[in-house]
Structures are given as C-alpha cells and as structure tokens.
C-alpha cells in the first residue's frame, strides 16, 4: 500500500549564486514519526528546511504535503499548510512579552488586545507541559527560555509538521529530557517531526528514522533501530578518501603559542570555549576539528584580538597577548585569515579591489601621504598566479569574486605578511581540487619555513592527511589532541559528537600542555589565583 507521507521532497535543488547548497535532494517524512536530519556543517540541512518553512524557494524540485503538490512561497504559506519551524537564530521580538510574540501571529485575534490573552496563553503553555511566564519580556529571558517560547509558538499555530533546527544546543540535560517528552507526546497526537541535530546519542534516543545529507547531497535514510553511531558517523563524513597531500617532516621549535585554561563567551552570553588548553609549535600544523558552533569562531577571534576572553592565558613566545589590540597582535607575527559563515566578513572590504585589499594591513608603512598600490598590485598579481585566482584583473572588486577565490585572496594576503603563527579557518571551503592543493602546498611551505599553523577545517580527510596533530572541540571543550597518523576518521567523528573523550590518552599529562612550555610558574600561579577568586560565591 503506497504510504502517504506527511512531507515529501523530490529532487530539490537550491543554488545561491555559484554555490549549490542542495543538489537533487529527496526527503520523506512519515505521518506521526520523528525524523532526524543529520549532516556536517555545510551539508545543506538548514537550507533544505528553510524551503519547507517558506523562507527560500527551491530552484528545482517538488514538495508534497499530505500527498498534494504545493508551492510554499512565504512563511505564511508554510503556516497555513501546518508546517512550523523553530529556527536556530530565534525570530522573536525582544521588547514584546512571551504572550505577545505568540499572539501577533494568531489568525483570529480580534481587533483589541484583551488582557486575558496572558491567561489564555498561560493555560496553553501549561497544557504543553512548559513553564514560561506569559508576561515576561523576551529580552529578559535566558537563551533556553527563548528556545522554549519558539517551540510553544509553533505548537500554538497548530503545526502538524514541526521542524526543529538544533534545538538541544542551548538546553540543559533536564530541559532536553522535557523536550523529548513533549516530542514523544506530540508524536502520539499525530504530529510529524523533523529534528536537525548533530548529537548522535540524541538521534539514537529520540528519532524513528534518520536522513543523512553530505555536502549538499542526499545520502540515505535508515530506521534508527537498524543502525548505530558508528554507521551514522561513516555516512555523515563519508568513506575515507586517500588524498595525496604531502606532510613534510619538519624540525619543530618550542611552542610559539600556548593557550592555557582559556574560557570565552559568545555573543549570546553562553560559554563558547570552556577551559581549553593547547599549544602550537613552529613547523607544525595543528588541526581543529569540530561541529559548527563548537567554538572555533570565538577561539580564532580571541587569538586575533577581536574578542575579549573571560579567563585564561594566551602566551606567544613567552609574551602574554591577552588584551592586545588586533594591530599589536598582527605586529607580533600572528596572522589570521578567517572566513566566517557569511563569507565576506571582516578581513576584506567587499567593494574594494584585490589590490586595495592586499595592502590592508601594511598600507601605513608606505612613505609619504600616498598609498603604495604598485607594491600591492605586484603582491596581488603574485597571489593571483600562485593560487590561480580566477579574476578579470587585480582591480576587480573582491565582492565579484566567487567564494573560493575570495578565500585565496585572503590567505594570500596573510601569508605575504610573513607571520610566525598562522590561524586559518576553512581556507579551502568551496574550492575545487586544484585550488585546494595549491593552498595545502602553501601551508606546507610555511610549515617548512618554521611557521606554526592552526588549521580550523571541516574536511576530516584533508586534516588527517595534512595536519600533524588534530585537536577536537565539542561544545567548547577539548575532547583530545591526537596525532593525525595515529587516529582515524571514526575516532575523530566520535570525539566531535562528544561520544569519546581522549583528553588523557596519549600523554602522561592532560592533552594541550607542552612539556617545554614557555609559561612561567608565576603566571600559572596567578592564573590559578584568579580562577579561585572567580569560583568563590
């Protein structure tokens, strides 16, 4: 008997400019089931779900709701079709109360705002098993409360299909349990649920089936009962590919950069990096692996001087770099090329030419009042040739380059400054094979010249081949620092999802402490003292 699915997506494709976010994706959601949507960062999960919720329109493909082909052109359409989505970035009005955030989308709300709406909402909130004060203003709420409100909102509008994008990322263990109870209850009441998540243990606990996406393409869907975490990890990251990336053996120096007990908060006030220790030697590439949002961004920003830290030490060649301005850090020889999620973020001025972006960090060194574009142009030309940047000329505005070429320009500029520590994040994201190899070669050249490199990446195959050591972060904590040639993709995958903790595996001291450290005992004592003070009530 042909099943009627609650949701069916067939051949869905979505492109942004030249980036293919979803390619020919099929997805089915049965009535009354909980489907987990699993995939690495950049695999296209959120984009796919945004098409169900009416924020994006697919370029190709078909969407069927309850067996009928539909066109979801706006969030209102989605709402009417009974599809509700709880987004990762909350869509709440800060100055409104919880009740008003829900009330504003209510279909038959009448003309006047009656005071009893608080009671109405309050009742319904309790009915769903949540505990939110309907009069409380969103801006006074904790992150987890806001999350709860978003879920309530969706339920209130009577959604039959509910999509949750990484809902447990901001919840405590108890709240996750409560959420799962609610999800189970909703399933019994006939709702169908899609949950985007990275946490394999939760997938195993709550879902009926799991669908996996990888690099924008659909891999497979399996029954949760028929699989296990190992298998899922393999689907998520793919079979091990033998890359021919060189890993030259270089004599290493004393640690150039040491991070001790570093704690950093993110923009929303939650802890992004939690008491992290690691070090980078000259002539070494240290990879940083982890799921999107595990704190890499905040870590890079802190090292570059763009984000203040809560506590901890950052010692560069024996000098403390905590609190220094970005320019001072640059002068010390720490260079960062970071490509945040929204591509042309800081680091590049989008409307200016490649040449102009080349001279960004050292334009003031030119003599006299004029800018030295000649030198910049030569540098630009060199970068264009060496990294094979596809561009009409050195004067093309950076904004017009495709994503991959933008990264090449960025990295090229950083390397030109002759740093001793390079922090690079996703340098090969969106690049084709040849360009990627060019980047690896450059990084290796720098390594051979004695530079220490922190490589935040997303392709585990690449990192296993290129890096000397790999540090895995999960929710801001270090899960282990392992030698690349001694570990495996599966091991990394398990660490990334928090299932495996190797902090004490390889050395006779905690991972991240260098035997020949530059940190003086005095500094350590100070650090302990400061932390002791913090912990006092």
């Amino acid at each position, binding site marked *: 008997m042909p099943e009627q699915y609650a949701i069916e997506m067939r051949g869905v494709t979505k492109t942004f400019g030249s980036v293919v976010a979803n390619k020919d994706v099929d997805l089915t959601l049965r009535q009354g089931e909980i489907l987990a949507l699993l995939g690495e960062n950049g695999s296209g999960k959120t984009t796919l779900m945004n098409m169900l919720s009416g924020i994006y329109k697919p370029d190709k493909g078909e969407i069927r709701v309850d067996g009928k082909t539909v066109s979801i052109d706006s*969030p209102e359409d989605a709402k009417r079709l009974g599809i509700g989505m709880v987004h990762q970035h909350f869509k709440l009005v800060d100055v409104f109360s919880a009740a008003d955030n829900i009330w504003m989308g209510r279909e038959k709300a009448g003309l006047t705002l009656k005071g009893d709406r608080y009671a109405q909402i309050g009742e319904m909130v309790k009915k769903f098993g949540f505990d939110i004060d309907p009069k409380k203003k969103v801006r006074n709420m904790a992150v987890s409360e806001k999350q709860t409100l978003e879920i309530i909102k969706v339920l209130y509008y009577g959604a039959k299909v509910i999509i949750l994008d990484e809902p447990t990322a901001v919840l405590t263990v108890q709240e996750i349990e409560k959420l799962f109870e609610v999800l189970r209850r909703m399933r019994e009441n006939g709702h169908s649920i899609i949950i985007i998540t990275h946490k394999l243990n939760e997938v195993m606990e709550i879902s009926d089936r799991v669908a996996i996406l990888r690099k924008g393409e659909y891999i497979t869907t399996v029954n949760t009962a028929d699989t296990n975490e190992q298998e899922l990890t393999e689907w998520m990251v793919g079979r091990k590919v033998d890359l021919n990336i060189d890993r030259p053996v270089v004599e290493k120096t004393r640690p150039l950069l040491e991070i001790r007990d570093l704690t950093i908060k993110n923009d929303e006030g939650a802890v992004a990096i939690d008491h992290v220790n690691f070090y980078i030697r000259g002539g070494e590439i240290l990879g940083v692996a982890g799921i999107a949002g595990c704190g890499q961004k905040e870590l890079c920003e802190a090292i570059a001087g763009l984000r203040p830290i809560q506590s901890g030490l950052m010692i560069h060649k024996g000098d403390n770099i905590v609190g220094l301005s970005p320019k001072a850090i640059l002068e010390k020889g720490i260079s960062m090329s970071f490509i945040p999620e929204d591509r042309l973020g800081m680091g590049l001025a989008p409307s200016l030419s490649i040449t102009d972006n080349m001279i960004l960090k050292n334009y003031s060194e030119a003599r006299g009042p004029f800018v030295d574009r000649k030198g910049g142009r030569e540098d630009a030309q060199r970068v264009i040739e060496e990294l094979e940047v596809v561009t009409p000329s050195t004067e093309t505005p950076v904004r017009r380059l495709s994503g991959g070429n933008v990264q090449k320009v960025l990295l090229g500029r950083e390397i030109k400054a002759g740093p001793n520590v390079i922090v690079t994040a996703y340098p090969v994201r969106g690049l084709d094979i040849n360009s990627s190899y060019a980047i690896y070669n450059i990084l290796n050249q720098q390594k051979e010249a004695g530079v220490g490199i922190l490589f935040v990446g997303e392709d585990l195959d690449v990192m296993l081949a290129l890096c000397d050591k790999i540090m895995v972060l999960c929710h801001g904590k270090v899960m282990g620092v392992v030698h690349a040639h001694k570990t495996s993709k599966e091991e990394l995958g398990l660490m990334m999802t928090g299932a495996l903790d190797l902090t004490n595996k390889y050395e006779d001291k905690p991972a991240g402490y260098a035997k020949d450290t530059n940190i003086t005992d005095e500094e350590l004592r100070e650090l302990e003292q400061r932390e002791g003070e913090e912990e006092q009530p």
Partner: protein
Amino acid sequence: MEMNQLGVVTTFVHNIVVYNIPLLYGTVGEIVVEKSGSLNLGVEGIMAVGAIFGYIIGCYANSMAVGILTAFLFGALCGLLFAALTVSLQANQNITGLTLTTFGLGVYFFVGNGLKSVAWPAMNDYANIKNGFADLAIPGLSQIPVIGRGLFSHNVMVYLAVAVALAMWWYLNRTTPGLRLRAVGENPGAADSVGINVKRYKYVHTMLGCGIMGIGGYYMALNMSGSFNSTCWINGYGWIAVALVIFANWNPALAILGTFVFGFFNTLRVSGSSLAAAFPGTLGWLAAIPTQVYQALPFVITAVVLVVTSVRKREGSGLPAALGLNYFREER
C-alpha cells in the same frame, strides 16, 4: 492678577495650542511611519503638499471636511511614493525622504505661485471654511479661568489632532494590528516568520502616517492669519516633528505633552512682548530677547534632547530596533 494680566496669560496659553498643533500632527504621523520601521525625512515636504492641495481644494469646495480629506489624501500619496521606493525598490530611506522634502516644497511653491496669478482662493471668501476654523468652546471646561479658554476653546482641527493622537496611541498599544505593526518595526524577520505581511503593513502605515502629516500641513495653511499666502512657508516644523518623535519616545500620547512643551517656547516668540508688557516686573526681560532667539529655540532644545537621549540610552526606549533598515527576506 489684574484682569489685563489674566487676559494676556489666557491668550498665551491659547496661542501655544494654536500655533503648535501642526507639530502634533507631524509627530503623530511620523511615529506611525517610524513604528513600521521607516525613517521618513520627508515630513516637511509632505506637510507642504497637504497644505497647498488641502487649502485650494477645500476652499473651492467650500468645506473644511473636504479640505481635511484632501490634505490626508495627498499626504498619503506622498507616503505611497515613499513606500514604493523604500519597501519595494529597496531605496535608501534617508535619501528618499530628503528628496521628498525638496520635491514637496517644490510642488508647494510651484502650484501656489502658479495659481496666485490666476485664481487664488482667499479663505475669508469661503464662509464655511472661515466658520469652520473659528473657535469652538467646550461647554463647562472652557469656563475654567485662565486655562479654560486657553485649552478648551479651539477650532475643530485642534480637537481633531488630540483625538488622532489618542486614537493612534490606542491603536498602537491596544489593538492587534498595532501589535503586528510594532513587530514589523522591531524585527521584520520575526513578523514575517509568523505570517505577517511585512510589505503590506509598511505600505499601509506609511500612507496613514503621511496622511496625518498632510492634515497638519492643511492646518498650517489655514492658520496663517486667515489669508494663506503661499510665497512663504514656516520653516522647520517638519524637522522638529522628526525630533519630537524621539522626545516623545515614540508614544503618541506623550507627543501631546511634547508639543505643548515645544510650543511654549515657540509661542514666547509671538507673545513674548505682550507678556513682558503685562508683567513688567518679572517678565520684562522677555521683550529684550531678539525674536530670532525664540525662532531658534525649538531647534536648540531639540538638539539638547538628541544629545541627552543618546547619552543615556534608556531601557524601555520606544525606538523600533529595525528603524531605517530595508527588509529583504532572502538576505543571505
């Protein structure tokens, strides 16, 4: 106080209201527009457009109601233009507003001067208008000494202004569409995600607010000593209104108070000398202050208010968080 002094004070209070009601219209109208997320710098021009068309057509129709409606309509038309450019065509709000001011004033002088030579209606020839603009005393309240005549004996457009201000307060804070409008101005993405039609809300409320401003312009036309002379235009009320919005914390009810406070200083310019004459002991110095100081005073006060509010950055500010930003759903 002697009878004469009493009379002067009463007239003063009366004048505060009379001369400054356009501010109330402009401010309330701009509050509505800004609550939808658009910063409209075209208030000056829109009031001028409302003034000229409202006056001419109102006179020829010999009906103040027609005048008010016309002024509203033409103001709303300007609002439509602004919305079309900034909401649908994603144009920069500042530039669009400023151009609207130049354009609106241009239309004002063009039509006004063009008609002057041909067929300019003089308000006194049209009885309905003249009578319509006469003072209407509220029974009972207007008997209160001093403030009675000052506050409660005014022409119908004054009462209309207060009514509109209170109505808008009620609309914004006590109705569902008002709630949705505020959502649009605070976080259009959130509003969009619950199915609120952001575009429609912006269009409708921009037109509504600009229409209200237009009525303010019409009032100014009527108020210019009864014989509206379009070669001059009282500079700056539109800009003060934009600043008054901040002073009133985007609250139409507070705007009434704000108008009064600003009006106080503005009216000193006109009535300062008579006050000085009536109270030579205490207020004699008022006459010595040059009139240009009075003219500049509203702007000085506004400037001070601007600085103070930006220094303090209060919690509970009514500033819509998405003010001045164009909304584009697929922003990536």
